[in-house]
């Protein structure tokens, strides 16, 4: 198992390297640079700015020095400064020297913010939204799926699948404004925009208090985000349950007089869970980083807007940072899913 995880981690590094390479090539092949404005800067100033950010280096040099700064930890004796190119995500003092790792570089669009600042202040908001949404998706999706599989081709099946189809058919840009209008504007039960937690976050990711003051901001966006995904989970749970429920061991379990609830939960559901777990990995990554429509509709200060504006601004470090972040989320959650497999299904052994 350890061997398997190590091999997967190595493979992850290769994937991340390729993703970084493709992104780098693609974003530099888009014409225009970060300092090309409608009103042209004087050429000397433009050249100076580009020199300051090392944009005048050859592209391979830029690429590898970026990777070097991000991936290779460095140990120095000089304390960290407030320079935007000296901001490391992990910066620990060990004895006299500093252990510093992951410098994602400055954001060209701002004079004093770095990509790491975005990770510290905006990413946690998107992360919290994604986690709550995933919880809602599972809480709605799995019971619906089980319900419709147990009542196959009867009315609870039709109702559940109707809800599921509603979930995939009514996209965020439709459901979001509708709910904002209904609960935020018409009834004024919930705040239409904003988020209930501010940096600094506990452990860099979590809000410091979890009361109604926090959740009243999260209810609508997390529901909108989670509802669409709950449909995916519901359909998959249903299909997988339908298959499992016809297996011989279910008949055996029933034949020996086991309580129906035990048959469903322990024998059927646990086995039906495996395909469902597969989807949770990519779903989680997509929910955490791909929340930008929801954030746009609900005015949530998350990572979302940086996704889009960084590309139109040619803000190279932010583009690289956000895409790599997504890729890391995806490969890590896929790895976790594969490990979960082995827990759920004792037949699966990684050697």
């Amino acid at each position, binding site marked *: 198992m350890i061997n398997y995880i190590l091999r997967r981690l190595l493979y992850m590094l290769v994937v991340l390297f390729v993703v970084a390479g*493709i992104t780098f090539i*693609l974003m530099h092949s888009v014409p225009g640079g970060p300092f090309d404005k409608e009103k042209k800067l004087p050429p000397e100033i433009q050249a100076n700015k580009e020199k300051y950010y090392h944009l005048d280096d050859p592209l391979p040099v830029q690429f590898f020095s970026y990777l070097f700064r991000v991936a290779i930890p460095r140990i120095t004796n000089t304390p960290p400064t407030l320079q935007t190119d000296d901001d490391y995500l992990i910066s620990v003092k060990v004895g006299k020297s500093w252990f510093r790792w992951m410098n994602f570089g400055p954001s060209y669009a701002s004079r004093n913010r770095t990509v790491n600042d975005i990770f510290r202040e905006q990413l946690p908001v998107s992360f919290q939204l994604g986690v709550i949404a995933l919880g809602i998706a599972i809480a709605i999706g799995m019971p619906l799926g089980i319900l419709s599989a147990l009542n196959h081709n009867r009315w609870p099946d039709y109702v559940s699948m109707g809800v599921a189809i509603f979930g995939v*058919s009514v996209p965020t*840009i*439709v459901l979001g*404004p509708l709910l904002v209008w209904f609960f935020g504007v018409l009834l004024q039960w919930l705040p239409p925009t904003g988020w209930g937690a501010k940096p600094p976050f506990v452990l860099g990711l979590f809000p410091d208090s979890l009361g109604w003051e926090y959740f009243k901001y999260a209810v609508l966006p997390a529901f909108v985000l989670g509802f669409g995904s709950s449909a995916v989970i519901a359909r998959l749970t249903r299909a997988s349950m339908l298959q499992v429920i016809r297996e011989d061991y279910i008949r055996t379990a029933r034949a020996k007089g086991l309580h129906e609830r035990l048959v469903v939960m322990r024998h059927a559901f646990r086995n039906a869970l495996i395909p469902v777990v597969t989807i949770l990995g990519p779903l989680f990554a997509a929910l955490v980083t791909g929340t930008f429509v929801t954030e746009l509709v609900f005015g949530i200060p998350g990572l979302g807007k940086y996704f889009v504006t960084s590309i139109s601004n040619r803000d190279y470090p932010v583009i690289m940072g956000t895409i790599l972040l*997504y890729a890391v989320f995806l490969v890590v959650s896929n790895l976790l899913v594969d490990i979960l497999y082995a827990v759920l299904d004792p037949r699966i052994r990684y050697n």
Partner: protein
Amino acid sequence: MTAETTTPSSVAEGPIPGKAPGKSRSLWQEAMLRLVRNRAALTGGIIIILLMLTALFADLIAPYSFEKQSLLNANAVPDWVTRVFPALKAYAVINNDYLIGVDKLGRDLFSRIVYGTRVSLAVAFIGPLISLIIGVLYGSISGFFGGRVDNLMMRVVDVLYAFPGLLFIILLMAFFRTTLAQPEEGTFAYYLGQLDKQFGGLLFIMIGIGLTGWETQARLTRGQVLSVREKDYIEAARAIGASNSRIMFQHILPNILGPLIVLETLSIPGYIYTEAFLSFIGLGVNPPTPSWGSMIADGSRALRAYPNQALFPAFALALTMFAFNFLGDGLRDALEPRLRGTQEK
């Protein structure tokens, strides 16, 4: 690395979703029958046909042009809308010439929704076609040749999977829009740019969607090919000396088509949504080409004052996605062999 080196080990690799046993043509008719008997799928199909007719005859159906402005009537609403939303009575311009109202630039909402059908349906049909062609070609080459080719090709797909799809499309759009914006006359890029202008900016969206959506299709195709490749009738075809391409297109492809069609139909709502989303954030079709996504974006900015401007295009988008989802679900029930036994009661 010839086609004959079919190692069983490569079969065990990776997930093989939905094994498809060989079907004959008569089973296709049976599937068709099952589809028509499915009421939800039938409803979806009828709605899609109606939408297609709407797109085709948009010029006849729409009472106004989609771009012509009548600024005097900006934000006007018909009488019945004020009855649904009484708050509007206080400030809205009432004009009963318009069926569901006018947007803030004085353009008829209904006409724009009707013309917007064209954009959504074009994406719904051409986007999947591109991703189907790329995905099936890629997946079948990978599955058919197996071994090292397969391994390499699937690793490429794995890497592409780690890309955030929407970001990739946005990056591609930025690339297309700037590189092909002012190319020299006579070059390929120039003609592509001109073509895109003719389509109102839709061409690049469809290419972008097609280029980012094929990985799932490729994986499924590969799995299907791997499972069919070992069948006796393929062995028989090979024994009588059929060429690789003949085996691929005459013997394998027709037998694995069902699940591929199901997957593609079920991903159509996703494609429609991608276009609407791109237009929603302003990276989609060029104005004034009407897209439901951009109409929802404009409308939701005036949500408090004129809810009708967002609600109607939102309804149109949701209806279309419902229709394709119903049809896709029906197709899956009709074609997916795994669930076949569960359909007959």
